[in-house]
């Protein structure tokens, strides 16, 4: 189960999307999210679905890997879908369960919401799957650099994000090991009521906190040894090349986004 969590993971392979400029991909992800919250007709959903499918296909990230990443959030999707299914008021009642009416509108809405969450996760995790944490934070730093003039400490912020991304897999591995160690000592995480289960988390969370602090401490020392200073101007070894292809991809996306917003407003 722990290994199913793919959020923030980088899938190392070569593809058109892997080679894209990180800034393009970040902007792409933002516009993609905007699009997801703007669309509402079935045709629009279909278009975005096809679009996402093509993106995943061209990223060379296996569909199986992608689906495995969806497993942990399936609960959220199902709960959202059920809530929408049973609570939406509508004209055409399909059937009744107890006091709750299931309407056609509710059914449509619940499918839409479920699809929206799934697409949101797939689309955005594509960003981290195809961009290594260093490149991602580099791109983010360039994109956010205008804020520097307003006195926002961008480089610190970006460093924080890249460290967080870097440590997700490490912490997952650590969690897995601690769960196993405590299971071997007879800890039971699966049975009992909610209170008992929450209490059962203590032997996992405390070692996890302790090791996170230890890691943070060691990392801070290592960074200081290499003269890390958050006030200084840092230059980058990498140059991000914004090619024509990136520009076209971005323009296409912005146009798509604009068209969809216009359609939405006109409707």
């Amino acid at each position, binding site marked *: 189960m722990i290994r199913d969590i793919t959020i923030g993971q980088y899938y190392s392979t070569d593809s058109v999307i892997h080679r894209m400029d990180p800034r393009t991909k970040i902007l792409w992800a933002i516009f993609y999210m905007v699009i997801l919250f703007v669309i509402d007709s079935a045709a629009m959903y279909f278009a975005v679905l096809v679009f996402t499918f093509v993106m995943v296909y061209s990223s060379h990230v296996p569909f*199986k890997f992608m689906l495995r990443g969806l497993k942990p959030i399936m609960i959220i999707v199902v709960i959202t879908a059920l809530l929408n299914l049973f609570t939406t008021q509508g004209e055409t009642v399909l059937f009744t369960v107890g006091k709750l009416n299931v309407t056609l509108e509710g059914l449509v809405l619940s499918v839409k919401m479920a699809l929206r969450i799934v697409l949101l996760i797939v689309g955005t995790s594509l960003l981290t799957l195809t961009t290594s944490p260093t490149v991602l934070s580099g791109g983010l730093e360039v994109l956010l650099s205008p804020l520097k003039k307003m006195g926002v400490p961008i480089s610190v912020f970006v460093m924080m994000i890249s460290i967080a991304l870097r440590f997700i897999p490490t912490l997952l591995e650590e969690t897995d090991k601690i769960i196993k160690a*405590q299971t*071997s*000592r007879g800890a039971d995480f699966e049975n009992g009521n909610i209170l008992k289960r929450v209490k059962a988390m203590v*032997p996992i969370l405390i070692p996890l906190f302790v*090791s996170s602090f230890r890691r943070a401490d060691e990392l801070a020392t290592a960074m200081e040894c290499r003269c890390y200073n958050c006030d200084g101007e840092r230059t980058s070894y990498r140059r991000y090349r914004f090619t024509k292809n990136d520009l076209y991809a971005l323009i296409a996306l912005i146009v798509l986004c604009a068209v969809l917003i216009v359609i939405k407003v006109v409707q």
Partner: protein
Amino acid sequence: MSNIIEVKNLSYSYSADNLAKDTALVNVSFGFEQGEFIGIAGHTGSGKSTVAQILAGLLTPSEGRIFIDGEEIEDYKEACRALRRRVGIVFQYPEHQLFEETVYKDIAFGPKNKGLSEEEIDRCVRKSALLAGVGEELFEASPFELSGGQKRRVAIAGVLATEPKVLILDEPAAGLDPKSKHRLLKELHKIQKEENTTIILISHSMEDLSEHAQRIIVLNHGVKFKDASPKEIFSSQKALKECGLEIPEIAQVVSLLNSGGMNIGSDIFTLKEAYDTITQKLGVGK
């Protein structure tokens, strides 16, 4: 004597689609008796840790048969539960799993989970602390205040407190100074002798294994390469090298002495044996 735990044709794959690159174990079979001291050796990625986790009932094998006390348990879930009750595992850097406020409470975690009475828990804690070399004066201290070696002993005591019939240790000496390491290995012997616990020591240090294990299982790329006494294992230096392992340094010295014309036999693997044989050969008094 019969095997308390035996596995036959064990295979394990990290993904469900059985791709060759995700396969950690292929067709591994072995068993062990109560009170044995077994070493599992192999280079990084040879499947040592996977075997350990399966034996401890923490991973479900993809294929294979599991026998406990001579009886096959076909349902893997059932087998895992039965294994967990019998086998204790000390992971690498076990001190990272400490969590309680006091050393006493941390050691008591295992017996408490077993649902034992207060007196029973107290007995388990004191006994395992003694076995692992944790002094009672540390009982009220916070486990986070201790030194590295002490923390590790507390963590090992915590596993021993569940009174396992089989104790698996994954590189228990990693990161310890030579003195603490020596002490730890000696304590393992004591546990084996006094409690008749089966000890399975996983290590890539052939020195440690040759000195302590009665039998060594060598794994290579997820396949069982050899399962024999240390003497037999180390007699095939070349084959061992192909598995990415070295014979103990002292055996290398002996083999060099032999090839240099000093015939002292080739079945010497510990410092003491070498010392005795060489002094005898040279006629030097002790």
